[in-house]
């Protein structure tokens, strides 16, 4: 349903330990954001792009479709950086803004690539039950896991209801379209809470008394992967500091 989620569940890195993938992609993400953009973001973003296309084998279409909306945001919000406002009623194109615009857009695109490397390789169901090890209360991670399970059912409902409404000409005019949208939201609301009630009954039968603890599959942490990741991050950091620091 969500191409990134499907990629994460079917890709060659499916059975890697989520911590390995987090170290790699979130490490690159931190480098992209926190190091001097030139050359830090270029190196981290470039590494993430190569990893996406190479070993992680994420289809380029999946990446591009997911990147479209954030790229639109980046493009729109970079325009004000290229424009200056010398007086409240005057706008002027400001070539001096170009370096900042390029730096910001470059950092954002690089960081986005790193984010995609994480989300296209790491299923959330592997991550959420392990988050309590970071000190997040189990009640919160269990609510998050239930949200993750149920959102697919509900997004499915939204789509099905939208199709059914279209079949009965629900989007013919603006007026009917608003009525239809309210119908979708209302139907999904009712569905969400009837799902919760039914799941409550279904879990009662399974012996639920307050804990939703489960056993997570054990993935062995690959030492070579961690060593290679550390080396990659170390190289990016060293090179960036060397290049960016004036002698």
């Amino acid at each position, binding site marked *: 349903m969500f191409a*990134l989620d499907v990629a994460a569940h079917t890709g060659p890195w499916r059975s890697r330990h989520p911590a390995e993938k987090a170290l790699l992609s979130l490490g690159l*993400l931190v480098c992209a*954001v*926190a190091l001097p953009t030139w050359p830090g*973001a270029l190196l981290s973003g470039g590494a993430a792009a190569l990893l996406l296309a190479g070993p992680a084998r994420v289809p380029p279409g999946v990446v591009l479709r*997911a*990147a479209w*909306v*954030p*790229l639109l*945001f*980046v493009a*729109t*919000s970079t*325009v*004000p*950086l290229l424009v*200056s*406002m010398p*007086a*409240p009623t005057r706008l002027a194109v400001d070539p*001096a*803004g170009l370096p900042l615009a390029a730096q*910001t857009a470059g950092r*954002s695109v*690089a*960081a*986005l690539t*790193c*984010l*995609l490397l994480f*989300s296209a390789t790491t299923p959330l169901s592997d991550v959420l039950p392990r988050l309590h090890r970071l000190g997040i*209360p189990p*009640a*919160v991670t*269990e*609510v998050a896991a*239930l*949200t*993750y399970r149920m*959102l697919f059912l*509900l*997004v499915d*409902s939204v789509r099905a209801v939208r199709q059914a409404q279209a079949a009965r000409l629900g989007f013919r005019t603006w007026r009917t*379209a*608003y*009525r239809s*949208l*309210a119908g979708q*939201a*209302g139907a*999904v609301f*009712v569905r969400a*809470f009837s*799902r*919760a009630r039914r799941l409550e009954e279904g*879990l009662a039968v399974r012996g639920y*008394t*307050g804990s*939703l603890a489960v056993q997570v599959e054990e993935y062995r942490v690959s030492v070579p992967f961690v060593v290679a990741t550390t080396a990659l991050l170390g190289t990016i950091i060293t090179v960036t500091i060397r290049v960016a620091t004036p002698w």
Partner: protein
Amino acid sequence: MHIAEGYLPPEQAAAWFVVSAPFVIHGSRALVRQVRRDPDSKLLLGAAGAFTFALSALKIPSVTGSSSHPTGTGLGAVLFRPPVMSVLGGIVLLFQALLLAHGGLSTLGANVFSMAIVGPWVAYGSYTLVRRGGGGLGPAVFAAATLGNLATYCVTVAQLALAFPDPVSGLVGALAKFGGIFAVTQIPLAISEGLLTVLVIRLLSRI
């Protein structure tokens, strides 16, 4: 309107985490207490989170031709109250970042502040004020959803302006620039969300 991954400079991205953290921690404590009192509320909270996420699958037709989705902060705040929304909103924004690449991890603090904290509080406040002032359910919900959405938009603009002040006119100029470029889509969208939320609440109050 989600600030994209990596768009904010690192110090500012970190600062928004610090600003949001107390609200989210307070909300989490409230959630943990509620779940301890009533274990079944875990399922209701999961459903509320999933519902909030699913609202982003609604496609509002917009005047600019592109379609956009409601923030759901107004509806969520009225139905589930702001403290819970800070946690649920945080979870939903995390999922939107990871499943859809809307928003990001480095900008999560900033987006949580605008969409899961300020938006719901403004929505809830407007709702309460209109109701106390003798307004009907419809106007109260309209105010909540429209102002909640607008507040989110204004906070996002302020976050961008703080990060990128205008070289000549400073913060004020940046507010005008960022505010202007997103106003075209965001103001009609806020009104749309208001109207839609009224219809939804009417529908729900009838069943």
